[in-house]
């Protein structure tokens, strides 16, 4: 299990690849991942940049608790969470979640649960900068 909070751009597939290469080959039958990326539009406005604030000590602790809970609730072999903070540009990754297990349901269901939990509870806040100034994102959507 690993949790990383990064203040610069990262390549999610490279992280997944390198993280999975450290695992014993042949152990896992399933790897599920989710990558949240910054779009250049939101609520009909064009977004130029975004700044992600967080509560460092609580964020780290909360993400680690999420991973522990996921490993309790599903037979996961491993789990990776990476989250950006600071100034983010369109196309850059904001969050990466990876889950590895012997069979597919654990990896898929845990990945799904982790992104929902993270979105609703991990102490990060987005402020968007667009052509008319800047605004705090007031709440996360239901993902639809």
């Amino acid at each position, binding site marked *: 299990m690993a949790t990383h909070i990064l203040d610069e751009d990262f390549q999610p597939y490279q992280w997944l690849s390198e993280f999975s290469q450290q695992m014993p080959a042949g152990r896992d039958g399933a790897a599920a991942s989710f990558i*949240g990326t910054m779009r250049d539009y939101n609520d009909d406005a064009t977004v130029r940049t975004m700044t*992600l*604030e*967080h*509560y460092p*000590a*609580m964020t780290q*602790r*909360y993400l680690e608790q999420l991973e522990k809970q996921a490993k309790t609730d599903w037979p996961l072999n491993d789990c990776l969470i990476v*989250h950006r903070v600071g100034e983010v540009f369109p196309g850059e990754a*904001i*969050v990466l979640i990876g889950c590895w297990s012997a069979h597919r349901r654990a990896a898929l269901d845990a990945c799904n649960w982790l*992104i929902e939990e*993270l*979105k*609703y*509870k*991990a*102490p*990060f*806040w*987005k*402020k968007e900068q667009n052509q008319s100034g800047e605004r*705090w*994102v*007031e*709440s*996360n959507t239901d993902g639809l």
Partner: protein
Amino acid sequence: MSIQVKFFASLRESLGQSETTVEQASTVTEVWDLATQSATPPNNLLVAVNLDYANMQSQVNDGDEVAFFPPVTGG
């Protein structure tokens, strides 16, 4: 007695402060009132005591860290 208080994101901006210290309080509500000069707490206010989610009725003790923030929007 000393309680560290933190504010984040839009709440930090609207209150115009990111950190303060409260000398005497037994609940989160008292911490809020002392730290904000009894500002009306927003409806969707979230609070954490020592890095765990708590509520306005939660007890606080000497050395605690109390954080107030709006709904989270990460991920």
